[in-house]
Structures are given as C-alpha cells and as structure tokens.
C-alpha cells in the first residue's frame, strides 16, 4: 500500500496544475487593454502624474500603490577574445489588488504583489532565458524573510538567488552608482548566468518632465528614470563555461499604474550607448487611435544632461523585418534626430532573441551605424512588445 499512499499528493498537484491553473492558456488580453493588459483601467491605484516629487534613496525601492514597476538591466559585453555577449536581468513587480482592496490580515503568505524575474544571456545564435516567480506583501521586504523584494537602503533587489545589490558604502553616493548583479539558471542541465560589477560613470537620468514620461496623447504615463552610464566587468557563464567580460550596461527604473493608452498595442524601445559618449533612449508606442503612434525619447550627453525628444525631434522607421517565433518583427531600423543632425541605422545582428517567458517579448542587442556611411556608431539594446 505504500504506492497507493505516495501517488496521491503527486496526482493531486499535477491535476491542479493541468486542469486548474492552465485556465488562461491562449487567453489573449482583450484588444483594448494594450500589451499584457498594461492599458487596462487602473482604478484604485495611484496614478503617475507630472510634478511627482522624487526622493532618494526611497524611490529606488518599490512603490506598492502603483500597479506596475520594474528594475530593468541590459548590458552589451565582450569577452577576452572580443566576442560580443548580451545580458538581461529584470525584476517586475505587479500589484494584484488596489491598496484599498488588500486584505487587512494577509498573513505570511500574502500575495498582494506578484514578483516576476527574467534573465537572459545571449551570444551569437545562442539565447538562454529563465524566468521565476514569487509572491509578496505590500510592505517593504526584508531580504531574510521574503522570497522576493526590493529594499531602498541599503539597495537590494532580489528574487530567490537572483540579486541586484548596491556596493555603495558612502552615503553621499547614489545607491545605484555601484552595483553587483548575480543570477544563474540551467538550460538542458548546463548552467548559464553571470556575476557582474557595475560602476556608473555619470548621474541618474530623469526622462520626460522631471521623471514623468508621457506614454500617450491623452496623458497616460509613468515615472521613468535610467542609469545609462555603467561600465561593467565580471564573469558570464554560458553552457557551463565561464568567461571574463567587460562592457557597458543600462538600468531602467519605471513605475506606473496605466502605462499604455487603451488602444496601444505595444512598443519598440531603444537604449543606445553611442561611441562618442552620448546615450539615446527612444520609443515608439504603436496604435493609440487618432494620434497614431506615440514617439518619445531622451538625448543624454556624456555628462548626463537630458533633452526630451518630442514630436518632430525624433523619427523611427523600420527598414527590414525578421520572422522570430512565428512573428514578424522589425530588426533593422532608421533612427533620425534632425535637431542633433543624427541619422542612424540600428540593426540586431541576431534576430533570435525572443523571450519565451510567461509574458513574451523580443529583447536583444543591437549595433548602431551611421545611416549614410555605414560607419559603426555604438551599441545598445532593443525591446519590442506586442507583436
């Protein structure tokens, strides 16, 4: 009878997973709620608005009363033989209920907040991806007591053993100016991952209107900050083989309750390190009714001075598409900034960077060229959602 007693829990779990939680397979978000439902009405949550005062280090931590938030890091690296590698690490926080609807006594297993982490290592045609989940309460987390969370001081963001930690001791320095990033996962039994040191060579950058980044013509938006000036060194493991790497990284911090307008289908997002020391952030939000696509961006000098790019200051044109994971995506772009006399071609050297995660999207390294001469002008990352 040992057997009869052992199958029960297993059968049960499998059953729950197979029959119960699989319920939303193939259930596309309603068309009017944007990519991953990010355009849905956000009643009961705090809204991102212009004039929001930012305070640090507090605002490095989570904002549980906003629905959505992320700590988003991408890095363009090279190993000792000069071979390029790409690295991504993201911690997403998503509030499951508006603050007023959260149960008062949620207990130790509270799930007001869903934490989701993605990591990726890419090199050539290889693209390794992993994803993890955790539940959390709404108070600021305690690294010892919670599976996932973020603390502002000392700065620490983690899910399981995937961590992004501040190395700053000096309280005069911004906590994000020196970071340590570590994550590992397995693919077919072979480990992949990274342990990187990040050192900022410039200040934290606020996009839009002192950090408020408008995302549609009718005023939806988010609080959006970046630290685009990291120099990186460390170790990346791919297919079980460690290699020493150096390069540049970009950290995005963003929180909001309704990121997209109801009709916006997704975005194309660029974060570029130009060879002359400038940084360029540009995005196009597709759809959105009468106004058409919504374009915005930031031109960042090597010193960190930021110029918002509005309306005619920015033009994005897809030049060529690739088919990835059954979808057709633009992987070659023309990017023009007339005011800065800039005409660039941005191209993904490897199209196969699909993140086949629960929420799936394209995220990969791009090379930047001068559009006219074809001369290399820099590197960066491109993110495309809603395809």
């Amino acid at each position: 009878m040992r057997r009869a007693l052992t199958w029960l829990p297993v059968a049960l779990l499998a059953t729950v997973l197979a029959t119960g939680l699989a319920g939303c397979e193939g259930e596309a978000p309603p068309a009017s709620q944007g990519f991953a439902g990010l355009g849905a009405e956000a009643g009961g949550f705090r809204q991102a608005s212009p004039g929001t005062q930012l305070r640090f280090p507090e605002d490095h931590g989570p904002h549980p009363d906003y629905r959505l938030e992320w700590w988003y890091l991408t890095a363009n690296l090279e190993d000792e033989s000069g071979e390029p590698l790409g690295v991504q690490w993201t911690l997403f926080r998503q509030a499951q209920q508006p603050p007023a609807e959260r149960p008062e006594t949620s207990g130790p297993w509270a799930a007001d907040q869903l934490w989701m982490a993605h990591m990726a290592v890419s090199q050539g045609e290889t693209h390794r991806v992993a994803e993890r989940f955790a539940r959390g309460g709404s108070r600021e987390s305690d690294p010892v007591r919670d599976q996932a969370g973020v603390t502002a001081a000392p700065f620490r963001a983690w899910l399981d053993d995937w961590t992004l930690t501040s190395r700053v001791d000096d309280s005069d320095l911004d906590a994000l100016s020196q970071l340590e990033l570590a994550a590992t996962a397995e693919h077919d039994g072979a480990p992949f991952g990274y342990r990187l040191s990040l050192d900022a060579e410039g200040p934290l950058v606020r996009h839009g209107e002192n950090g408020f980044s408008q995302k549609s013509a009718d005023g939806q938006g988010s609080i959006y900050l970046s630290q685009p000036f990291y120099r990186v060194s460390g170790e990346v493991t791919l297919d079980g083989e460690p290699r020493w790497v150096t390069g540049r990284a970009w950290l995005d911090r963003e929180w909001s309750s309704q990121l997209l307008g109801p009709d916006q289908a997704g975005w194309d997002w660029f974060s570029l390190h130009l060879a002359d020391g400038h940084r360029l952030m540009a995005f196009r939000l597709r759809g959105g009714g009468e106004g058409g696509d919504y374009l915005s961006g930031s031109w960042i000098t090597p010193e960190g001075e930021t110029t918002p790019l509005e309306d005619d200051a920015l033009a994005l044109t897809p030049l060529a598409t690739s088919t990835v994971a059954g979808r057709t995506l633009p992987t070659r772009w023309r990017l023009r900034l007339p005011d800065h006399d800039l005409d660039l071609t941005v191209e993904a050297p490897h199209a196969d960077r699909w993140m086949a995660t629960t929420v799936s999207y394209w995220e990969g390294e791009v090379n930047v060229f001068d559009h006219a001469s074809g001369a290399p002008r820099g590197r960066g990352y491109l993110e495309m959602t809603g395809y």
Partner: protein
Amino acid sequence: MLTALLTLLSHYRRHPSQLAMLLLGLWVAGALWSGVQAINASARDSYARAEALFTTGLDRLERRDGEPLDRADFVTLRRQGLSVSPLLEGTVITARGERLTVIGIDPLTLPGDSAFATAGSPSTSNPGELTAFFTPPWQTRLAPDTAPRLGLERQAAPGAEPSLADGQRLPPLVLAPALPPDTLVVDIAVAARLLERGTALSRLVTAAGALDSAPEGYRLGRAATLVDPGELTASFHLNLTAMALLALIVGLFIVQAALGLALEQRLGLLRTLRALGVPGRTLVTLLALELALLGLIGALAGIASGAWLASALLPDVAATLQSLYGAAVGTQLRLPWHYWLGGLGVTLGGLFVAGSGILWRAARLGVLGLGQAQAWRAGFQRQLRGQAIASTLAALLALAVWAWLATQPAGEGLVAGFVLVGAMMLACALWLSPLLAAGLSGLGRLARSHPLTQWALADLQLQLPRLSLALMALLIALSANLGVGSMVGGFRLTFLDWLDQRLTADLYLRPPAGQFDAVQTWLDARDEVAELLPTADAESTLLAVQAGGERQRLAVPVTLFGITPGARLTPTWPLLETRAGRDAAWTALEAGEAFINEQLALGQDIAPGERLVLRSPGGDQRVTVAAIYPDYGNPRGEVLLATAALRERFSAAPGSLGIVLTDAGPPGERRVESLSRALATRFALGRDALRDQREVKALSTEIFERTFAITRALNALTLAVAALALLASLLAQARERRRRLAPLWALGVTRGRLASIQLAQLGGAALITGLAAVPLGIAITVCLVAVINVAAFGWRLPLHVFPGEIGLTLATALGVALLAAALPALTLWRTPPRTLLAEEEAT
C-alpha cells in the same frame, strides 16, 4: 443480376426475424469490439498527454534537527537558489461534521515548467485562473463528488462559499473533476488561515532529481519510485481487449448461425436460380455482395453504438484508471480516424470468415440435389465428421501451444496465451455438435421401448444442424463469461486477502526521518501500544544471482523493503515458496536472509536458497533467498529484509511505523483519537501523519471494486446478447418445426405433451451445452490467471472456482433455452389442431 440479387434478398422479407438476428449479431460484435477499442484509444491518448506530469514524483526536504518546517526554511532555501516549494496539509471539519483534507500549494514555485508555460499571463488586468487562485477571494478546488460532503449539490457547488465547523468560510468553490475525493486544494495563504498554522509547513518539495544532495542542515527524501502508469494501465487495457475479442467471437458465431439458417432455407431458391441459368460464380458473388451489404450496415451501427457505449462507460473507466494507477484520462471521448476504419475492418473481416463456409457450400451446390431432410442429414453427417476433424486439429494446436508455453520463461508468450485460449474455445465449440449427435443417437438406442422419447431424440437430432451454431455461440459465451468472471472474482478475493495480510497494524504513522527513532522510542513506552512494526525502504541494484557454484551477472534495479517480523505479521504474511518451511523462513529473515517477490523470482528465475548480490552504499551485500511472496500490482522486483538489517546494511531511510494496539482499554476509535492527539502534542505531527488501517483498506477496496464493476458489466452484456441470439435463432425456426408436430397430434399425443417434449428437447440440449461450458470455462480461467496474467503482469493469480457462478451459468443456459422453447410451445398450445394439419398438408 440485379434481379437475382433482389430474389436472394427477398428471402428476408419472408423471414424478417432472420435479418434482425443477422444484424443483431453484427451489431453486437461491432459494438462491443469497437466500444472497448474506443475506450482504449481514448485512454492511451490521454496518457501521452499526462505522461510528462506523472513521470516526475517530487523529492522532499526535512530538517536534520527534526524540527517542523517553517516558511523561513522555504525562504532560506530559495535564497540559496534551491527550487523548493512549500506544501501545507491538514484536515478541516465541515459544518456537517465531516473531515476533509486541505492541501495548500504555492502555484508560483511548484515544480513543473510545463505548468508555468500554460499558466498564462499573471496579469491583474487579465484575470486568469492563476491570479484568481492566489488572490482574494481565492478559490477552493475540489472534485465534483466532494461537493455533497460540504452539503452541496454538484450543480450548486461552483461559486458557493460553504462554512466550516469553526465558522470560517471556504473560498468560492471551483470544480476540478480530476482531483481525488474528499480533498480541497487551495492557495497556501488560505490553507494557513483555515488550519491556523501561521508560518508552519507540512513539507518542502522539489522536482525529482533537482537536487544532487541535501543542503546543509536538511535531509533529502527521494520521491518514491512511482508506478509507471504505462505498465499497469496496459494490463487493464489487455483485460478489456481480451473481453472485446471474446465478444467479437460470440457475435460472429451468432452471425454464422443466422447466415447458415438463411442459406439453408434458401437452398431451394438457389437451385431454382441455378436451374434458370444463373452461373454458380455469379451466385457466390451475389451472396458475397449480400454479406458485404449486411456487414456494412451492421458494422456501422455497431461502431456507432460502440462509440456511444464507450462514452457511457468512459467516466467510470476514467475514474477507475485514475484512482487505480493515478493516470489522468479525459472524460471527453476522443476518437482518431483509424478507430472507425479499424472497427469496420475487424467487423467485416470477421463477417467474411464467418460467411466463408456458407459461400463454400453455395459454390458446391448440386443443381439436381434433392432438398429433402434425409439427404440433408447425410450432408450433416459429413459436416459433423469435418467438424470433429477440425476440432481435433484445434485441440492439437492448443496442446502444442501449451507444451511450447511450458518450456518458455515466465512473462513471455502473451500472444501464445491468447492463441491457446482461442484454440481451446474453437476445439470445444466444434466438438459440441458431434458430441450432441453421438449422445442423441446413443440415447435413441436406449429409448427403443419408449417411442415418444425416441421420436423426441430423433427430432432433436434433425434439428441439430440448425441448432448447433446457436448452441456453439452459447457455449463460447457461457465459458468466456465463466472464465473471465472467475478470473476477476479470483483477483478480487486474492486482493482482499492480500490487503488483510499486508495491513496488519491498526495504525500507520509516517514520521519525518529525523524524528523516526524518537517517535519509535516514545511509542514503545506507551501502554496502549502492543507492538511496533517499523518499515524502511531503499533502492538498489541486483548485481548477481548465485545458484550452487554458478554465478549469473545482472544489473536489475530492485526495491528493498524492510518489515518487522513479529507476532502480528508473520502468521498472515503470505509466502508462495520457501526453502525449508514457513517457520524456518521467518527465522531466516530475522537472521538476515531475504524474501523476494514473485515478479523478481519469475523475471530472473530465482529460487529459494540462491544468493543475491545487491549494491549498497557501503559496498556489495550478499543475501540468501529464504522465500518467495506474492506482491500483486507491483511492476517492480522487490527484496524483503528485516527492517533493522535493511537500515544497517543498506543505510535505508526509515519508512512508516505500523502500530498494533493492545486489546484492552476503550474502543478503537477513541484510542486512535487520543494517541494521535498525544503524538501531535509531543512531536508536532499533523493528524494526516497518522493513517487508520481501516481507512486505507476502505479506499483501496473502493478503487478495485470499480474496476471489477466495469469488467462484470461488459461480461454480463456479452452473455445477455448470446442468450438473446439463441432465443432469436430458435424463434426463427419455430413455425417450421410446428408442422412436424401435427402428425404426432393426429396420432393422439396431446398438445400439452407436445409442448413439454419441446421444452425437454431444448432444455436438455442447453444443459449439455452448459455442462460442456463448465470445464471449458475453468480451462479458460487457468489460461487467464496462469498464462495471460503472468505474461502481462508478471505474477500468477491463485485459481479460484466459484460454484455459485457455475450454477448461475448452467441456470442461464437452461433459462435461455426454456424461454426459447416456451414461446413456440405457448403458440402451439393455442393453435387449433386444424391449423396444424393444414400446415402439414401445405408442405
């Protein structure tokens, strides 16, 4: 040619009952065959989909210091990068006082990539089931048959929020048919609130094999080797297929009986057609065309109703498979295209096999032959000789197969086993007519001084050609019914006995490995505990078997299981074979020798007295086999040792702790209750750690009873249909028979007498058929339990013969025949004598 075909078919307008019987036979053969095939196909398809979920058990972690697990353990291990997931189990009491198991899970960390891949977007604005499961108001997932335990109708259950005895309400109910009964699955946050456990955990699980070794401070318990559903479910399907095959044979016999009758009555017509210039070849083609036409109609009807039968039985079959083997079967019937084609092919193929004899006879039809009864009788004598020869050949084939099987190693020859059964049945069926004919002529000679009896016997002999096919069908149906019935009944009895023998202790406790010894010491000191039966288990590899000076090298994975031979266990534990008697075997076990299960003994050809070399963490271990024991339903080889020896020599993890209570003191339930309370207080063990033996027994019995119920239902259906066919075949010729009775009546025999003669004739024939079916049925049982079961399962069932069942078989045969005879007899009783004479004149 069309005219000729229509002329041939016009026969059925005059005898619609024959057409009905033909179609009935085809329909039954097709329906049962394809119904069972549909169930098989659908179930197999489901396994393929479920396989990924079931091949992985879950490993579990326990604290080395024996303390209960807590949420902090979960977080610590996750932060170290170990993919563990928390589980919280307990019992809640419903408002009506019933106990239900609650299992709290964390769907975000539960192992299984596939589950997450299908979990969908965890977005609040896209409220998928995942979010609904772990956020307010949460969900309670339960099987539909659990709803009544909460005082709810199934229909009213979804969305209901029933109260518990302590006043708490359950989250809204969601039905999940695949869940085991009496179990509620909720988010771990809900479970912690309902069970008032705070941050405590019942266990930490991880995907099997995910961890190479236990983390510091923890102990790793590997997932118990789960039964591979493929192996066991296949054996259940084999049973079903065997049943379907028997059903097909019965159906085809019915078809042949009907076809034979239809041809015989059309002999005149055929001769006329030949005389009118229709070539013999055309005639055969036409008859074949008729067969194809009828076959197509019958087979399609059969397949359609087979699909219906399958979908009607499927929820039950699904439930049986699920509870028996833990395999998920969809309750929606899914039929691949080849199912329809295959069903059609088998039915039509069978029909042509059955009809080939008819075609053969039609092809050799003498144009000038006289269609007289006596001439026919001479033909029948020839046929009898032919049958006797064929039957002898079939018997010889059966013997040869049996002799060949005897030389084969056990576990092989599944196909040969089926051939043996088939040949045996054929031999007996073919022998039946010569046997009856010989018996009748013998009796006829004895009854010389009783003219009426002599007439009755001669008359029966005259009927024999027409009756023989129907009687053969009855014989096969009866013996198949008896055989399968005895097999299933025997399996049930054996299983129940085995349960009684194996579950000897009153209570079973599964303490965490770290606490095992402490719990054992504590229990030992308690007054109400009479005896403790600790078990242990481990995995090993059988490296070699030494018999005498010979040494056979092997690498067979085996399970090691430790038991505690004591006053309670040794008298009831069954042993099949020992080296030197039962008592010596038990003494030897205590001294460090081993018992092996029948599967291992048959599979590796090991006998008591031989020595096994087993791999252990501390180097190879040698044990002597003292005995072989039966181990039903276990697909793996197992080596049994005394628990102490197993733990010492193989570093085995402790398993469960059987507790035998003393006879003194308050009644059982109260003592169980107080003991489990004391255990919970002393060792912080949940109530679910302690299992009442009666509960376990009831659960397993219930599971098996359902399997047997389905088998019996299919079996009874086959028999009922065979009975119906015999009835139809007798009714079809009743009117014709009546004419022969008219002269007797004219000679002064009363109608009552005539009616009773008819009853006696048919009753006698059926009784002889039934009596012939008894030894055949028993022979089939032997084949099923000793050949087919061994080939499929690797173990032999004891032979059980059920006199009640044999009596029932005989009664069925007699009842069918008497019923078949009674209806014409009743008509005869009511017919005015003048009509009888008129009919006689008409011939």
